[in-house]
C-alpha cells in the first residue's frame, strides 16, 4: 500500500499524530471519486474478495457432492447444481422456465413491483412516524404501546384478515409486505432519533434555532444512519413477507413460482426461483445502501479517512 498510495498513507499517519494542517490539505484534495477508487483498490488488495469466491465455491461444491456424487438419501429429491444451471440457461427448458422465457421476467417484475410499492409506502409512513416517536415523548406514550403490541404479530397471521379487508389478490399481498417493512423502518428511525447526542440538540438551541429548526437540522440528519440501517432491514423483510403472501394468493411472482413448481414437481424451477429471489433481494438491498451512502456523504468520507470517531 505504501509505495502505491503515498498520499493516503500520509493522511492516516498525520491524522493519528494530530498534525492537522497537512491532513486537512490532503482531505480537501480528495474528491469523492478518489475516495471510492481508494476503497475499491483496498478491497481488491485485501483477502476479502477471494475469500468470498472461495465461500461460494465451497457452497456449490458441497451441494454438488451431496446431491450428484454421494447421492445422500436426504438429498435424493433435490436437483443438483448442474440440473438447475442447465435448466436455467436452456433455450428450451424441460419445465418451461429459463432465462429465455419472458414469463421468468414477468415473475421477477411482478414481485419487484409489489416490494417496491410496499417498501415506498412503509418508508413514507414509517420514517415520519419514527421521527415523531423519537422526538415527542408525549406522542410516544400514546402510540408506542400499541405499536409494540402489533409488532410481534407475524405477517402470516395477518393473511386471513388481509384477504377479508382488501379486494383482489394484489392489495392483500402488498399490505402484508408493507407490514413487516413498516415495523422495521419505524423502530429504527425512532432509535435513530434517540441515539442523537444531546449536545447536538443543545448546540442548535444555543445557536438560536427554534424547535422546528432543530427538528430539520439536527433530528432528521442525525437519525439518518439509523434510518438507512432500518431501510436495509426493511427491504429484506419485505421480500420475506412478500413470498409468504404470494404463496397464499396471487398469479405471478417469485413466491408463487416457487410454490407452484413445488406442487407440480418441477424441482429445478423451484430452485431457480429461490436463487433468483436471493439475487434480486441482494440487489435491492445494495440499492438502498448506495442511496444511503449518497445521502450521507459526511459519513462515507468520515469512514474513508479511516477514522472510527
Amino acid at each position, binding site marked *: 500500500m505504501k509505495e502505491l498510495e503515498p498520499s493516503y498513507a500520509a493522511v492516516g499517519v498525520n*491524522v493519528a499524530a*494530530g*498534525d*492537522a494542517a497537512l*491532513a*486537512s*490539505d490532503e*482531505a*480537501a484534495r480528495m474528491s469523492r471519486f478518489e475516495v471510492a477508487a481508494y476503497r475499491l483498490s483496498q478491497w481488491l488488495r485485501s483477502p476479502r474478495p477471494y475469500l468470498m469466491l472461495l465461500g461460494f465455491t465451497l457452497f456449490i461444491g458441497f451441494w454438488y457432492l451431496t446431491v450428484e456424487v454421494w447421492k445422500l438419501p436426504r438429498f435424493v429429491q433435490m436437483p443438483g447444481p448442474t440440473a438447475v444451471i442447465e435448466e436455467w440457461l436452456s433455450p428450451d427448458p424441460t419445465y418451461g422456465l429459463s432465462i429465455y422465457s419472458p414469463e421468468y421476467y414477468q415473475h421477477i417484475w411482478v414481485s419487484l413491483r409489489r416490494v417496491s410499492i410496499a417498501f415506498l409506502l412503509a418508508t413514507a409512513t414509517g420514517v415520519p412516524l419514527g421521527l415523531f416517536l423519537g422526538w415527542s415523548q408525549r406522542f410516544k406514550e400514546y402510540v408506542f404501546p400499541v405499536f409494540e403490541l402489533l409488532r410481534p404479530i407475524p405477517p402470516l397471521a395477518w393473511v386471513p384478515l388481509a384477504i377479508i379487508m382488501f379486494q383482489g389478490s394484489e392489495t392483500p399481498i402488498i399490505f402484508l409486505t408493507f407490514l413487516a417493512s413498516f415495523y422495521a423502518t419505524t423502530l429504527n428511525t425512532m432509535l435513530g432519533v434517540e441515539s442523537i*447526542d444531546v*449536545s*447536538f440538540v*443543545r*448546540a*442548535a*438551541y*444555543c*445557536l*438560536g*434555532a*427554534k424547535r422546528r*429548526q432543530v427538528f430539520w*437540522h*439536527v433530528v432528521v*440528519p*442525525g437519525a*439518518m444512519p439509523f434510518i438507512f440501517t432500518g431501510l436495509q432491514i426493511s427491504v429484506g423483510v419485505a421480500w420475506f413477507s412478500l413470498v409468504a403472501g404470494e404463496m397464499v394468493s396471487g398469479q405471478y411472482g417469485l413466491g408463487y413460482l416457487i410454490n407452484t413448481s413445488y406442487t407440480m414437481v418441477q424441482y429445478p424451477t423451484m430452485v431457480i426461483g429461490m436463487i433468483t429471489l436471493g439475487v434480486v433481494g441482494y440487489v435491492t438491498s445494495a440499492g438502498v445502501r448506495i442511496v444511503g451512502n449518497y445521502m*450521507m*456523504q*459526511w*459519513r462515507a*468520507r*468520515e469512514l474513508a*479517512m479511516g*477514522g472510527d*470517531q
Partner: protein
Amino acid sequence: MTSEPAPAYEQPIAPPAPSAPRRPDASRKGQIRIENVVKIYGSQTAGICAVDKCSFDVPAGKITVVVGPSGCGKTTLLNAIAGFHSITSGRIRLDDAVLCGPGQPKADPGPDRIVVFQNGALFPWKTIIDNVAFGPVVQGRLNRRESYEKARAMLAEAGLRNLESNYPGEISSGMRRRVEIARALMNDPKVLLLDEPYRALDSLTKSVMHEALLETFDRNQVTVFFITHDLEEAIFLGHRVVIMTTRPCRPKKILNVDIPHPRDYSVLTAKRFREYLDETVQAVHEEALKAFAAGERER
C-alpha cells in the same frame, strides 16, 4: 456580589490588555452574576445537592476559569447559565437581565451565551462552512449570502480557510474545536461557555489551542466562562480562577491572576506563574482529597 462585601482575597482585576480590541463595543458587556445558586437533583429533601449557595461574578470581557474536582458540579453551573438545566433556588444574571431565578427556574438557551462542548458538537452532517453559518441563518439575523460571507471571513481569520467544504469528521479534533469557537463567535455572543473543551486533546495540540484561544479572545474581548481541571491551563488562560469545593460546589478560593494579556508560553516558566500554580494546587488538592474520601464513603 452586590449585597455582600467583597472577600479579602478579591483583588482588583488586571488592567485590560494593551492590544486594541477589534470591536470596541461598550454596550456588549456580558457580566454574569451568580447569586446564591442552589441545585438539587431529585427531590428537595432526599436529592443530591450539586451546587450549594454558590455566589461569584464572571467579569465582563475577561476569562474566568472554574476549576474543581471532577463531579463537583461545575458543569451543572454551566448548564444553568446556558439554559439546559433549571436551578433550585438563587439567581443568575447576565448584565441587567435575570436569566433564571425565582419564578423562572430555567433560562432560555440563546445565542448571547454559546456553549462549546466537552466532546465537541459540530454537526457531523454539515460541512464546516454550513456549521459556521448555521447560527445567523436559523436566527434570521443575516440572510444566507451575508452569513456565508461572514462565515468565510471568520474561518479565514482563524486560519481555517481551506476547510470550508470538509465535514467535521475529516479534520483533526484540534481543528474542530477552533471551528466550533468560530461558529460561536459568528453570533457575537456576550458570553462563551467552554466546558472542558480541550480535555480530549493531547498536550501538544492543547498548547496550540490555548494560544489560538487567547488570540481569538484578544480580538473579540468576549466574556469567557471556562471549565477545566487542568490547573496550568486555568492559570495560563484566566484573568480570574475560581476554585470550587467538592460536591456540593461553591467557590473555595477566587484568584485574580495578575499576569497581563496577551500571554504566551513564556509565562509558564515565570516565577509568578509558579506561585499562582502552587497556591491553586494546594487548594485543589485539599478538595480532591475530600472528594476522594467522600467517594470511598459512598461506596
